[in-house]
């Protein structure tokens, strides 16, 4: 027998929906065909003889072996109008660990099986209650850390992303049908005139749409994981002081001694509803000792991974040519925000700032005195602006799983290939790409999935959902 959430649809499954430990109330869900039997045999409502109306809450007692077992609030949901699409019970019990265990054990004794992570949602999917995109959105909502992330996931739960995919699939299908008709010589003379131009335009449009979806997905990653900001600069520029100032706590050790930070320090930070990963790095200077060399290597990796570099410059000193070159090297092809720190000691040299900005092509710069907390508010506003620019605000983003992100990228590259092949009149190959795109779109919508993919998707849930 196969192990996993797809192992058997015939079992009735049970799991608490609330996290372990003591709580105000615990909620336990039962899903499957035993639900009704359990309801009639184990539950006695206080103010009624039996549970007559589904989807209504009843206060009463769960009985076990002829004795009252636990006082609960229970509702019965009849298939298919329940979360899983099966008969379900939702039981609210006292928030103690023992109460929770008592209810679950009673259900297990009644023939239920403990649900695996994601199994309720897997059933909802298998019963046709939601498509795969919606199911993946549920996983996102559950794990959403920020408001922007939650908003996006909710939007997808409503099926907007599915709709968009459906629209693209119909456009691809239309072009494919036309190409196929040409290849099978079904078009009479005259019908193919102007068709080539029309095809090229449709294909170009499809490619643009696919690319836009890819960009939106990349923004979605930002929404979920946060904008990764690496604080980079030379020793003693005040990077760690700035790091602490942004966090509002003394997370990193700071001192006047150069090279205090030897290792990378990473902290998650939510500011103004946006998620950031703040990364403090060691100084950029040429490493001497073995330890410094290792620190420098790690800094380099962090620069590579970052979505945004916060280039911190000691504004109280002028920048040597050598140092400037090193900064330019670090900031090449990256989004950069230049921060002139230590403004309390001396006003930063205007010409240094201007030159660096020109060389790196950076528009964003800010003057701070991190130690005194001056300019930090301005920096926060600036970060929010950059975040919105990169993530496209709340609206232009798409929250996708890694699986979906990969499929979207495949879709975009295939659409470009299809466009170019059609231009070169290699229509049978363009058709091949378009067929591939339809498959990819079906996979994105969960219309074409192997059980391996399903296991992976639902395996990401925590128990109970």
């Amino acid at each position, binding site marked *: 027998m196969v192990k996993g959430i*797809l192992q058997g649809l015939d079992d009735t499954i049970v799991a608490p929906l609330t996290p372990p430990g003591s709580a105000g109330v615990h909620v336990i869900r039962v899903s499957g065909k035993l639900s009704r039997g359990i309801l009639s045999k184990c539950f006695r409502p206080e103010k009624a003889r039996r549970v007559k109306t589904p989807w209504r809450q009843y206060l009463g007692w769960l009985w076990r072996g002829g004795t009252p077992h636990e006082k609960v609030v229970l509702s019965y949901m009849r298939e298919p109008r329940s979360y899983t699409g099966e008969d379900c019970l939702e039981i609210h019990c006292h928030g103690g660990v023992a109460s929770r265990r008592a209810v679950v054990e009673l259900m297990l004794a009644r023939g239920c099986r403990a649900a695996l992570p994601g199994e309720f949602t897997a059933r909802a999917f298998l*019963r046709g209650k939601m498509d795969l995109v919606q199911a993946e959105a549920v996983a996102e909502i559950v794990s959403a850390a920020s408001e922007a992330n939650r908003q996006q996931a909710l939007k997808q739960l409503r099926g907007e992303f599915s709709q968009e995919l459906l629209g693209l699939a119909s456009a691809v299908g239309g072009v494919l049908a036309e190409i*196929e008709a040409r*290849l099978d010589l*079904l078009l009479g003379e005259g019908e193919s005139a102007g068709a080539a131009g029309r095809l090229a335009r449709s294909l170009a449009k499809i490619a643009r749409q696919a690319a836009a979806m890819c960009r939106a997905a990349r923004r979605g990653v930002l929404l979920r994981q946060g904008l990764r900001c690496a604080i980079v600069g030379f020793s003693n520029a005040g990077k760690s002081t700035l790091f602490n100032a942004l966090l509002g706590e003394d997370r990193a050790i700071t001192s006047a001694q150069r090279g205090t930070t030897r290792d990378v320090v990473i902290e998650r930070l939510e500011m103004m509803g946006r998620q950031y990963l703040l990364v403090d790095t060691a100084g950029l200077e040429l490493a001497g000792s073995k330890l410094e060399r290792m620190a420098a290597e790690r800094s380099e990796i962090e620069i590579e991974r970052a979505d945004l570099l916060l280039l911190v410059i000691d504004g109280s000193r002028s920048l040597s040519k050598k140092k400037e070159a090193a900064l330019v090297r670090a900031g090449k092809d990256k989004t950069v925000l230049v921060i002139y720190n230590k403004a309390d000691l001396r006003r930063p040299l205007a010409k240094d700032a201007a030159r660096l900005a020109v060389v790196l092509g950076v528009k964003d710069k800010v003057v701070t005195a991190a130690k005194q907390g001056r300019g930090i508010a301005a920096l926060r506003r600036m970060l929010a602006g950059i975040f919105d620019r990169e993530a496209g605000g709340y609206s232009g983003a798409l929250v996708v799983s890694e699986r979906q992100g990969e499929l979207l990228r495949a879709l975009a590259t295939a659409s470009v290939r299809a466009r170019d092949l059609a231009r070169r009149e290699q229509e*049978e190959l363009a058709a091949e790409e378009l067929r591939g795109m339809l498959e990819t779109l079906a996979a994105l919508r969960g*219309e074409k999935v192997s059980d391996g993919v399903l296991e992976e998707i639902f395996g990401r849930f925590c128990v109970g959902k």
Partner: protein
Amino acid sequence: MRKNESYEVIVIGAGHAGCEAALAGARAGLSTLLLTVNLDAVARVSCNPAIGGTGKGQLVCEIDALGGEMARAADACGIQFRLLNTSKGAAVQAPRAQIDRRGYAAYMRQVVEKQSGLVAQQGEVTEIITGAGRFRGVRLRAGEVVRGKRCVLTSGTFLGGMIHLGLTSYPGGRDGETACSELSTCLRHLGFELGRLKTGTSPRLQGDSVDYRKMKEQLGDLAAPRFFSRDTESISREQISCHITYTGQATHRLIKRHLDKSPLFTGRISGIGPRYCPSIETKVTRFSDKPRHQLFIEPEGNTAAEVYVNGLATSLPQDVQRKMLKTIPGLQDAIITRPGYAVEYDYCPPYQLRASLESKQVAGLYFAGQINGTSGYEEAAAQGIIAGINCAHSLRGEKPLVLGRGEAYIGVMIDDLITKSTEEPYRVFSARAEYRLSLRCDNAARRLLKHGAAAGLIAPAAARRQTREEKRLAEERRRLSGTHIGAKQAVKLGCVKSDAGKTAWELLKRPEVSCAVLARLWPKRERLSGREAEQLEVEAKYEGYLKRQRQEIERLREGENFRLPRDIDYQSLTFLRLESREKLARVKPETIGQASRISGVNPVDTVRLMVHVRSGLAGGKKR
């Protein structure tokens, strides 16, 4: 005829499906009886006198690779060969030939008569005799019974055939031939569901009454014609041109005025016609904005006086057909020798078949050709040879030959038939084959010859020749991949110096480089044959796509190998959607792969069914 006469295979019907089925059976070493209502009407080309076309041409090459006859017959009787889609890539190019109508039938009859182990007899089958759910024999019109172990039914348009010409209609399987009605009743009694389809044909004209000066001549590929069979090297028949003319607004007005006399538009024909080969009435009404429709005047043969008007299929009355011709350039004075007509007939919706073409209802009874809802000679012949081969496999107790969708157009067609169960005449297209880049004429033998050899239809010498060819190709491919091109050589090939360092195989991928061009580098080396060179070039140019298709085909196989128990009670699986349940219960798919392709079966339901079967819940035998 002796009463207890018995054959291993009885083939009913001697059309294109029947001939291939009977030949396959006999060549596989089975005692075979071919029964036909009229022994003078073997392998009749009853509609347009042409074989091949997109998708269909590939089918003919596949029949050839399996050891069938159609390709050789078409080559021997071809009077105009054309390779279609030459401006497109190799995978969508397809051979097509006009053929000598009488010559084709005569050729085929001779092959059938000369085939050892095969008896061709005249006789109308009125009943299929079964016992314990198995085929036992057939009863003929005069009452005799012929016993047999396997049967291939290829009834074409003859089951309950009804001919329509204007508002007149009369029973008939084809113009001038009688229909069979008892057999339809018999099939219904055996539990088969029957449906009704329609097909039409064009008028034929007296050739010397046509004015060709008003038409455009269409020549065949005279220089290097493309043949269907791998064995054909040259032909001796004289080649003839076709001619092109057009209908006009006057024609369309006339047709619209007389629609009240069309059996199609007055509701006299209930059967559904072929969407891709519509009658002129349908074309004129459906595409009313088109100013004209193209017509091909096709010669019927080297010595035939008649010509065929391809594109003018009609069932309007004869006098309207005559008036119609008066409005068409070049046909004003044409004399009709046989009017166009429509024929309506019974077919057996093919969901009732297994992938082997054996019926699910009666063991040992196979269906092939138009009875399965297909249209076209090539489609019929392809099913015929598969049914014949599977009779042989079944009698030997071997697994049936089921070609995959990634293996052959034949596989695509049969899979479409049994899972989608066509409701209109089914024609093969290249678009139906999702792996068409891999399913080409040039590699048909490489794909299928082994199956023909396994069934006994291919001589061992031919199989050895094929093995040698494949070895040679693999060697040459290895050599080209391992040969790096120098700067001077690159220039010699018409490439640029900077191409130096690339392998010969990489350069072969370019449109302008062929095997012949590469051969300039090694003038002393023995050259590949034309067919070998073609295979190598196509494979180089399509390489990335072919690789991807191989992977997909491999994945597809998993679904085909996941067998579903025959006794699943789909109606009881309440966790499946209602529509899925109904479709699955009707079709009773053999594999999860088939189930996933049934239209109306929700993909999620396929996964659920798989989960259900795998967890041991389905199938009484398992528990």
